[in-house]
């Protein structure tokens, strides 16, 4: 395993097209990088050219059968972390924004293609700068699936097993709890497992935390299930005490979300 910063991006066709300038070489040789996004960095285009996404790039060598895990933590009030990873052939791009109020962005690539992966540390907000820590891990075994991943898949059995060791069933990811992901997907059994494990049926998406973001919807699981038309899940949530009158950030109750 070798992890090193990118010296020249011109050799990467996809990134060469995306990035407006070459990233200056950094010399870190370890998996941990502490660095700053600055206005001198390379940029990814944003909707407003005056506020590009400042970006640092790193490389990680991955062998066949290994997994890649990248965690970007913002150490700045103004930088909401976003991390992107690009496969050796530049045909796969995994993208993660920050995980709710944890201040982290995390990407896991299981069964990663062998070769040189590129990791882009950036911000979800155009024009944002700030310091961050980046951990790039190349693993012989992929990490266990998170509650969120299992909730998205609706794997109730695996969820039940994972919940036995979970410290906090409502840990948000991308502003949402595992219950919200299961509700959106219409996974009734997964919803029931999460509720039985103590998931808060009236938790709100993007409750303001250390890094409040104005687009937080404050939706509940009932809003999300109603909007997605997941009627069976709506029934389960109601039976578990979901609040019919909860209004989201736009003053909208679940019934309006269902229209």
């Amino acid at each position, binding site marked *: 395993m070798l992890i090193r910063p990118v010296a020249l991006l011109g050799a990467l066709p996809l990134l060469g097209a995306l990035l407006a300038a070459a990233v200056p070489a950094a010399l870190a040789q370890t998996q941990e990088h502490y660095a700053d996004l600055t206005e001198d960095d390379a940029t990814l285009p944003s909707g407003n050219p005056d506020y590009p996404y400042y970006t640092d790039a790193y490389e990680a060598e991955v062998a066949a059968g290994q997994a890649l895990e990248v965690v970007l933590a913002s150490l700045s009030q103004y930088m909401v972390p976003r991390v992107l990873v690009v496969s050796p052939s530049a045909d796969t791009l995994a993208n993660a924004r920050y995980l709710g109020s944890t201040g982290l962005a995390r990407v896991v690539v299981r069964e990663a293609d062998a070769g040189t992966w590129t990791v882009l540390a950036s911000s979800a907000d155009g024009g944002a700068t700030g310091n961050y820590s980046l951990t790039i891990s190349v693993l012989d075994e992929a990490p266990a699936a998170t509650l969120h991943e299992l909730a998205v898949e609706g794997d109730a059995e695996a969820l039940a097993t994972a919940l036995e060791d979970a410290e906090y069933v409502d840990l948000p990811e991308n502003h949402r709890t595992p219950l919200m992901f299961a509700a959106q997907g219409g996974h009734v059994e997964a919803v029931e497992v999460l509720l039985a494990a103590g998931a808060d049926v009236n938790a709100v998406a993007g409750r303001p935390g250390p890094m409040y973001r104005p687009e937080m919807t404050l939706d509940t699981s009932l809003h999300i299930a*109603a909007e997605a038309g997941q*009627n069976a899940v*709506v*029934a389960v949530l*109601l039976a578990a005490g979901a609040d*019919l*009158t909860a*209004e989201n950030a*736009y*003053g*909208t*109750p*679940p*019934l*309006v979300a*269902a*229209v």
Partner: protein
Amino acid sequence: MQRLLDAGADPDAGEETAREVAANMADADWVEEAKKPGYAAINALLNG
């Protein structure tokens, strides 16, 4: 929708109510024609 109404959801709650949203969308020019019958049905449901 029906489950929420059955559970007691208020069609007149919120800054823009479910009744208003359904009525507006049933009439709106920008709503695809294929969806208008659905919103009209919801509107009829809400207006009993």
